[in-house]
């Protein structure tokens, strides 16, 4: 008896009664199902042998399931090309946004300088202007700089989307790192930039990871800007490419779903890989300190 007690103490919180634990698991099970059902829907559609959207079947795997749609998407449609474009655009956006946001966030966290408060307010207020309305001016600017149909022309607006939130988040995380750590290095004669790179930035790794994830996802899932900037089929990113499969009268749903699932997999893999950073690294305010 005593032995079993110890085991259950090891597995669960002391305060949780068996009944409570069952209730918690049931609640989480329902939550997980709700979370997964739309993903399963896409998976299910991608396996159907015909291109039909609708069926009254409720089975986990559709009857006559086939991987044909995946074969077509991988080898006959330019899915891999779209994926390569998306990787270049999203990857560059992530690297550059993290660079810009980590520096700006550091200044906003560590220094009291003229214009600091207005800068923070400004970053927040950029989130308030309805994004679609920046689209037309953005298009005109990019065409003036001859950046239409180029990766640069997509990376710059994506960075502008990702940087304000990433900066806020970085600032929030730096705020939780004791500044005393930097004094020690500075006394040894390091410049502020050296202190920042050697001491503070490595400690902020979780927040850097989350910023990178956010910025990457901005590029990976963006459709509206991409549709306007990209007109050459060879430049299409995944969202734009996938939508070309939807035509008004005859959408190839099975293929679309297969492509959608293959689009989701890298994003889901990234989230899984980063999920432990997400718990501590996602700070917009902060209680630590």
């Amino acid at each position, binding site marked *: 008896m005593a032995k079993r007690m110890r085991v259950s103490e090891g*597995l*669960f*919180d002391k*305060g949780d009664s068996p009944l409570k634990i069952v209730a918690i698991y049931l609640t*989480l099970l329902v*939550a*997980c199902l709700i*979370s997964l059902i*739309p*993903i399963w*829907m896409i998976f299910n559609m991608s396996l159907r042998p015909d291109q039909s959207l*609708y069926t*009254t079947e*409720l089975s986990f795997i559709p009857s006559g399931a086939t991987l044909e749609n995946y074969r077509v998407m991988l080898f006959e449609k330019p899915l891999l090309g779209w994926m390569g474009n998306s990787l270049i655009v999203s990857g560059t956006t992530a690297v550059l946004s993290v*660079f810009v*946001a980590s520096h*700006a966030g550091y*200044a906003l966290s*560590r220094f*009291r300088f003229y214009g*600091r408060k207005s*800068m923070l307010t400004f970053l*927040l207020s*950029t*989130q*308030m*202007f*309805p994004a*679609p*309305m*920046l689209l*037309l*001016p953005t298009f005109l600017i990019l065409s003036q700089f001859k950046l239409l149909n180029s990766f640069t022309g997509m990376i710059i*607006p994506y*960075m*502008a989307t990702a*940087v304000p*939130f990433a900066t*806020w988040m970085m600032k*929030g995380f730096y705020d939780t790192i004791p*500044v005393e750590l*930097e*004094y020690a290095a*500075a006394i040894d004669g390091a410049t*502020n930039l*050296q202190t920042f790179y050697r001491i503070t930035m490595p400690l902020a790794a979780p927040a850097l990871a989350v910023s990178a994830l956010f910025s990457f996802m901005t590029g990976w899932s963006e*459709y509206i800007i991409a549709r306007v900037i990209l007109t050459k089929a060879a430049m299409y990113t995944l969202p734009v490419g*996938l*939508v070309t499969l939807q035509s008004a009268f005859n959408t190839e749903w099975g293929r679309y779903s297969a492509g*959608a699932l293959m689009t989701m997999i890298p994003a*889901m893999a990234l*989230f899984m890989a980063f999920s432990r950073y997400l718990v*501590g690294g*996602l*700070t*917009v*305010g*902060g*209680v*630590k300190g």
Partner: protein
Amino acid sequence: MARRSRSVEGLLPGAQPWNPYAYTMPALILMAVMVVYPLMYGVYIGFTNMSLQRFFEYDLIGVRNFVSILTEKELWEVLVRSIVWTGVNVFLHVAIGLWLAILLNRKLPGKSIIRVILILPWAIPQYIAALAWKTMYQHDFGFINLVLKQIGLSPVPWLQHPQWSFLAVILVNVWLGIPFMMMISLGGLQSIPKELYEATDVDGGTGWDKFRHITLPMLKPVLVPAATLGTVWTFNTVNVIYLVTGGGPGRSTDILVSYVYRAAFDFYRYGYAAAFSLLIFLMLMIWAVLFVYRNRADEGAY
């Protein structure tokens, strides 16, 4: 934590006065070119009659766009719907996200797998998620109605009936937004010292007492900025409504932003849409100033 950095009144040793300006320079240039300039251009367009037919030879027409927006019959209805949309969404994001976070913030075998599954809606591009939900709402063959019929209930006209459609888009957006708030809450919960709860145990406090007197106040500096951002994002979300219902049936699920989006990109009334965007921006700014100062959210944020 704000207190700690405030102790850096002067400069850090080894730092130069120009350091903060150098660090923020790239961000400021980027935002000036890609946000401030387009924004000012948008303000200017708002005072013109630019449209697809008048793309190059448009005229300044003063405040006519603003007058026609403010006298629009549907405006107040759409405004009220936007507020309901935002309020319900943000409340459910925070409530369910926090609830799941509390369930997960304990010793629980398998919790890291559960956590990963619960984050997945966040990892799916919105245009794909919206489409999956749209097929699930389909009347005769959609997953939800098939399940309802299986358990003996009558099917629901999800996308045909105004109120059901509004519920349908809210459900999609709640589904999309919970993971963000859950992760924010989890991060906050983990930084609350366990001793605080143990003290309440000694005093014989209930779970509800702990939640009200420890968890909520301790999480406030995390949740208030997150909810502020969430409100602004939700108010400005076009994707879900545009992709799931297209604002329909009729205009029954339009909120201000989807209304603007359609005015601009389905009806090509650029001047009108720009003026409308400006009004939305001003509204959100006023709300944010009132809300942020009332909640002293800046304590945590600044």
